[in-house]
Structure formats: C-alpha cells, structure tokens
C-alpha cells in the first residue's frame, strides 16, 4: 500500500483529507509540524508528501527546502496544498522542487489525479475504494 505523509496543522482538515485518501486506498501518516515531518520522512520515507505551507514550527517553504536538500528524502514527490495565495507562493514552491501546487479548497478529483500520477495507484486493483469503505480513525 502506498504511503502518504500529510503535513498539516489543522486537525479538522487533516481528518477530512485522511478519510478521503484512505478511501482511495492510501496509507496515511501525519505530521502536525515541520520538524516532525522532516524527521519522519528521513527515517521512514513515504511515497508522497502533501505539504501545507502555513504550518507552525518552521515555514513550510523551509521544510520543503530541507526535504529536497537531504538525499534520503530528495526524491519523494511533494504536493503543496495550502490556503495561501498562489500569486505569492506557487512559483517559489515549484522552484524548490514541489511537483504540484493546489490552493485549498481543492477539487477531490484533481488532487487524486495528481497523487496517482506521482505516487501511483492507492491499492492495486481497488476499484471500489469510494464505496462502502469504512475509515478507521486517523493514526497519529
């Protein structure tokens, strides 16, 4: 199962996104702040990172920069998902190596399309991910 690390400080949004991605067949890992994200990604590299720029414990741009600077994490695709104005940060994040940029709220289909493109399908052969999936509680 593909593993996605979500770096997000808003617990409600995090829960909603986790439910959505788990239903699509992904295994979800979460980090509430930048340091945890960098440490975790270094020790157990996920298949993709969803990064919010506006997180506490370090600007998300710095987190992105650190991830790309470390050879152990540099190859992990990072999708930026933020409430910030794209006019001010989109270009910067793509320059730093993010593979895609989305502004909240993002269309579920568009986001899933980008995740599949960079991390592959969630659960091989899982066609009914959206139907009847019973999400377990989000693990920290």
């Amino acid at each position, binding site marked *: 199962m593909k593993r996605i690390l979500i770096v997000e400080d808003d617990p409600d949004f995090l829960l*909603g996104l986790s439910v959505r991605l788990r*239903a699509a067949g992904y295994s979800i890992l979460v980090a509430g702040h930048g340091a945890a994200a960098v440490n975790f990604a270094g020790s157990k590299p996920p298949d993709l990172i969803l990064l919010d720029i506006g997180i506490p414990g370090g600007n998300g741009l710095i987190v992105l920069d650190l991830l790309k600077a470390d050879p152990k994490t540099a190859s992990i695709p990072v999708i930026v998902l933020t409430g*910030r*104005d794209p006019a001010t940060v989109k270009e910067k994040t793509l320059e730093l190596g993010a593979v895609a940029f989305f502004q*909240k709220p993002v269309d579920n289909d568009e986001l899933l399309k980008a995740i599949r493109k960079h991390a592959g399908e969630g659960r091989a052969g899982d066609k009914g991910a959206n*139907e009847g999936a019973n999400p377990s509680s989000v693990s920290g």
Partner: protein
Amino acid sequence: MVDDNPPNVLAMLAVLEGLGQNLVTASSGREALRYLLEKDFAVILLDIQMPDMDGFETAAMIRQRERSLHTPIIFLTATSPDKKHAGLAYATGAVDYIFKPVPPEILRAKVSAFVELHKKTEQLRKLTESQARLLEEATERRAELQASEANYRTLLETNIHAIVLVDSDKAVRYANKAARKLLSPENEKYVGTAFDLPFSTGETVEHTLRRPSGGDRILEIRTENTTWEGTLVHFVSLIDITGRRGAEEAVRRAQEEELRLRERFLSHASHELRTPVATVYQFVTILLDGLAGELSPSQREYLQIVFRNIEELMSMIDDLMDATRGEAEGWDIHPEPVDIVLAIKHAQQRTENLSRARHVKVTMAGPDSLPDVLADPTRVRQVVSNLIAHAVQHTPEGEAVQVWWGVHAENPAYVCVSVTDRAESLGKYDRLHVFDKMHQVGDAIDDGRKGLGMGLHIAKALVCGQNGRIWTESAAPRGNTFSFTLPLSSQSGSPAAYAKEKQGNEKIS
C-alpha cells in the same frame, strides 16, 4: 495812432485801413496810455507836438511799463528834424521817425513791416510756449516710466521665484535676489556670466540643480521671451519644486505601504477563510460519496444543498481575492494555446450545480472544434463560468440560458463566445455599468441572491487582459447577450492565414 489833430488821424486811418489790421486811435498821450494798459499793439504812431503831454513824455511813460516796454514807437512830427529832437526821440525808445505830411506809401510800408514783425514775434512766442509744454510733458512721462520700471524691477527683485534674464548669447543680463541666492550663493558676480541651466522658450523644463554645498534642488524652469532695456531677452523663471516632489514622494510611499498592508491582509484572510471552507467541503463530499455510510434520501438532498452553498461560497472567495488582487498588482495571466470549446464545456460543468438548483437549463451551440486561442486556460474557464453563472442567476426558473460560440463574424482572427440570458432587458444605465465592480442590476436585496457582483467585473478585466473585447446587447423585452472575443493563437496558423483560408472556403461554397 496818437494825434491831437483829428484830420491827421483821419488821413492816417485812410492810408492804413487797407492793411486789414485793428486800428486804434487816441487824441492824447493819456488816452493812448489807457489803451496800452488793455491791449498789446504791433506798433505805436505817436505825434510829438501835442498839448498837455507831448510825444516824448508819452513815450517815456510807455517805456516805463512792462507790457509795452518793447512795443515799437514811430514818432510823427511836422517840424523839420533837428539833432536835439532826433536824439531825444531815439533816447525814448523810438524806432523810427516820420515827417509830416506823411507820404502814404512810406507810412503803409513801415506800419506793415512792424505788423509783420509783431506777427512773427507772436508766432515765435507761441512756438516757444508749446515747445516748453511738450518738454514738460515729456519730462513727466519719463518720470512715470521710470516709476513703473522701478516698480517692475522691484517686482522682479522681490519675487519669491528665482528669475534670470538671459540674452541671446546666453549671458545673464539680470538675476533677482532669489536667483542670486539659488545660483550664486557665494555672492560672486553673477550678471554677465554664462547661463548654464537648460531652458526652452515657451516650455517647462525640469532640472536637478546639484549644489556643491549639498542640498540638491529640483527646479521647474519656465521660459518666455520679453524685452529688457530695449533688447530681446529670455525671461527664465526657476520654480523650486523640491518640497512638492518630497510631498509627492511621501504620498507615493504611503500608498505603497497601504497597498502592502492590504496585500498582507488579503493573503492572511485568504488563508484563514480557505482552510475552514476546504474542511467543510471535504466532509460534505465524504458524506455524499458514502465514505461514512449510506445516506437516507432526505439526508442526501440536504447535504447537496450544503454542498451547493459551499461551492458558491468558494467561488465568492475566489472572486473577492481575484478582484482585489487584480486591481492592486495586475491580473495573473499565463497565455498559451487553448482549446476554447473544451474550456467552455468545463465552465458549463462547473456551473451545473447552480443551474440545476435554480431550475435553469443551459443549452450549448457551436462547432465541436475551433482553432486554439491564445489565452490562459484557467482564466478562460473563469470568464465563461462567470458569464454563465450571471445569466443563470438572472434567468427566471424553467427558462434556458444559451451559450454559443464560433469564429468572430466581423474579424476572423478572433473567436467569439456569447451567453444569452432570459432576464429583463438591461436599461441604458445598467448596460453602461454592468461590468463595474459590485454593480447589481435592480435591487439585489429584494431580488434574491445574485452573488457579490464581481463576476462580470472580473470577466471584463480578464478578457481585456487577454487582448479580447467584451460587450453586451439587449433584446426587448427579455434577453441580454454578453459576448467576448479572444485572439486566435498564432500557433494554430496565423490569424491572417486562417482568415484567408476561411474566406477561400466561403467563396468556394
């Protein structure tokens, strides 16, 4: 004529009448003196032998008076001249001497000579008088002129602006106090030096004056031609606008600061609004997608209403941020070749929920494919969906909005897209202002929800930002069409070539 003998007087009268002069007779010296008090005479004919007061005495009296001091006197005498007599006569101021009987021609000739002399003297006197008067006037005028020139110089000298008069050789002819202070603060001799600031007659030149002491001044240099002490000079006024510029700069900085603060607020507001909206959106879609279990039909229906409103809220946040930011720093547009038909279809899909909720049908009409336009795909979608949303919001329930597209009939280098609603025709005022920010047709509060009134404003800004044109036409009593054009991309064949090809096709068919 002074003679005590009337026949003599009559004889002289007869001789002199022909001269046409004013002849006055007196029969005694006393009478003559009386007349002389009242009038000036050209000549006096004075008989010497008279009783009571003789000619000599009379002449002496005449000469004593200022008025007759120089009046010529001709003595008349019957006695033959002796030296004593003659000497006495000349001594009393006679100019001539005639013996009786007086030969008429001689009398006439002599008298007329004196009359002429008197006339000439009179003329000369008048001339002298008028010359004196002229001289006096000229003196007065010169004094006035000097006074006004002094005023002028005072005005120049004390003017708060620096004024320099520069002659045709660019040499300084005059510099007022302010000019000397500005241009020659060391009190050197400034007049006569070469004027080295830029100037142009009839124009205003801006120049920054570098001063060795520091404190550069920004000058506005205005030049007119005028005359000064009889020669043509450039009248150069130097207006110090350093202060004004400083104030302008301060205003500009304040505006920049305000803009920066607004940007920061917007960025913050955007973030703060988007995260909760995104969360609500996520959970509503999770529920609707059945990820949290089956929904009852009414639960589903109510959640769909929540979903639709969340979508509306999202697009309002987008519009608000877009319009405010677009105004502050220009619109973020990245043109590329775009399949316009696909963009229109996407836009229609985006507004499907809205049109379904309002029970308004959206019909689509146009060719399946068109040459690519040069535009930003996201922005084209935004323009079309804003136009459709506006049309749907203003069309009565149960009716249809029409979307149609094609190559622009008037200019084949453009594609034209139109959206027609079934709302009441826009009045003249609304047609003029329908693209204004926050404009609402009619009374928006009584009329139900119509959005923020940003959609058309943004559409216009985006179309213009992509080299297109947007306009509106109305049909009575219902139906307003909003149309816009976008240029064909040169990569889909140059617009000109495409136009030619199209014309060719039309000729064949």
